[in-house]
């Protein structure tokens, strides 16, 4: 059984007087430990699919199961609880809370769990260490570079030891060198910790770090190309 199963997944929303359908009858399976890249032009539905899988949006119709749990009919509060335990989200623009330090940003998801302070501290320290930003733990986001902010965001995403990690254009706002460093980090998470990663990207070079790439267009999967050879990686970034 796949970790993530989508069957006839559809999402419709209204923008003013217009009805927009970013996803139509999508079927998808993702295995545990997979590193999947979703590519496609703007408006193809890749971010929408990511949002549905990560539980921050609800499908209009169809079925979506993650680790055996059906998400499509869940209430908002139950989805929130589920996300807290099972999902780590990495945004393109990092979305760190500006008035919290790096340490406090990473600690934020742990506040949702009943955990002794010491244990919280240990997990935050470990996450910051893993992403290589421990020395900046008491800096505010405005004192960090883009690459450093994204590292903090990654630490925040992994600190709860989630079932899946989703990343929406994680290198979209970074320079080449920082982008490469972030992709190496994500690849390491996938291979060394066996985390399931789903990443949306425009950049084929970034997609080449993934084990599998899927293309979407107008809300549907158009091909299922398995880019398993990491040949392009070194030259592309």
């Amino acid at each position, binding site marked *: 059984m796949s970790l993530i199963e989508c069957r006839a997944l559809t999402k419709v929303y209204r923008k003013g007087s217009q009805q927009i359908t970013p996803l139509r009858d999508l079927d998808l399976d993702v295995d545990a430990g997979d590193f999947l890249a979703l590519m496609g032009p703007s408006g193809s539905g890749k971010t929408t699919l990511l*949002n549905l899988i990560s539980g*921050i*949006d609800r499908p209009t119709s169809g079925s979506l199961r993650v680790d055996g749990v059906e998400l499509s009919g869940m209430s*908002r*509060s139950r989805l929130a609880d589920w*996300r*807290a335990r099972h999902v780590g989200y990495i945004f393109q623009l990092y979305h760190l809370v500006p*008035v919290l330090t790096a340490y406090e940003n990473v600690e934020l998801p742990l506040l*949702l769990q009943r955990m002794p302070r010491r244990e919280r501290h240990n997990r935050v320290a470990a996450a910051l260490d893993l992403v290589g930003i421990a020395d900046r733990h008491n800096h505010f986001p405005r004192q960090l570079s883009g690459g450093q902010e994204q590292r903090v965001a990654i630490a925040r995403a992994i600190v709860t030891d989630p079932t899946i990690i989703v990343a929406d254009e994680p290198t979209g706002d970074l320079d080449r060198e920082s982008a490469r460093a972030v992709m190496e980090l994500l690849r390491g998470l996938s291979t060394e910790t066996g985390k399931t990663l789903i990443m949306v990207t425009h950049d084929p070079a970034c997609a080449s770090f993934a084990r599998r790439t899927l293309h979407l267009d107008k809300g549907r999967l158009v091909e299922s190309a398995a880019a398993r050879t990491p040949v392009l990686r070194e030259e592309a970034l």
Partner: protein
Amino acid sequence: MLDARFIPLVFKQVIRHRTRSALTMGGVATVMFLFIAIQTIQDGVRRATERSSRDATLIVFRENRYCPATSRLPQRYEERIAGIPGVVDVIPMQIVVNNCRASLDVVTFRGVRPRDLDALAAHWECVEGSMDAWLKRSDAALVGEVLARRRGLSAGDAFDSSGVSVVVAGIIRSTQPQDQNVAYVHLEFLQRSALRAGVGEVTQFEVRVEDPSRIEEVAKAIDAEFSTDVEPTATRPEKEFVARAARDVMEMVGFTRWLALGCLAAAVALVANSVVLSVRDRVREHAVLQTLGFRSGLIARLIVGESFLLALMGGAVGAVGAFALVQFGNFSLSVEGLSIGIRPELRSILFGWLVSGAAGLIAGLAPALRASRREIAACFRAV
């Protein structure tokens, strides 16, 4: 309620958004300062005018007179008043005041006999000088603490007002609000100094009754005794007497109640405005929190918590300011020679502070509800 582990987060949001928080707290502090100052004035009026069942003092005044200068009663009335059943003590008093109208700076002299001083001094404490010094000089004055501070007087100083020149023999502190703002001088001295009043005439009599529950009865009996005399009397319990004289002031104070409500509304509006702006700027941040797993109810409580904290901190500054102003300002409203002392009551200060917190809670509710109802994906799309 908000779990304790999220309280540091609320503090950080408030303290680290320095400018916004400072402006909001400054605004709340300003209006709550005014609110608490108004409460304090209302307290002063209430203390001076509300009768309690223990009140046992009557004021015998000239009927149809309202200014001390125009009330003249023969001093010989004392014996007849003392003979009325239920009367324990009668103190004739001459009052000279520099202005009958309502104001903040009035000097009132009360002329009393040396032998009556003990009865009056039961409520006093001499904080400077001595009562013996008063007994030794005919032009000596025992000055109430509030009046002394207002005029910068100490024992040994000379001062004059309304054509009366005295030397300060002592400064007194009294539990009776009226005593705090007057100067007690010798009755004969005042009768001779004061205009047109001769020895043998006084402004009023202060009468102590044996049984406070019979105070109205005794008042009626006194008025009945003199109803056919050339100088008829009007006798009332002391606080009622002050209330009648201070009606103008009480009306003004009644109006200030509306002002106080306005201040409260302004505080709610200030905090609500700040929270709305803050929430609008943090749409994405709240969406991220929801992404991390923060429930919408928790986010709403965080917003209300921030709102409550902002208002409480601003209210604290306002409360401290109001307390300092009233404590060190030595304000006292006087009308027709009667005094309404304005001094801080901790209960009112605390009440005002808590009310500011409540205003913050109310202010945060609507924006919190709105923020918590937003769909996460819609938030990311919107920004």
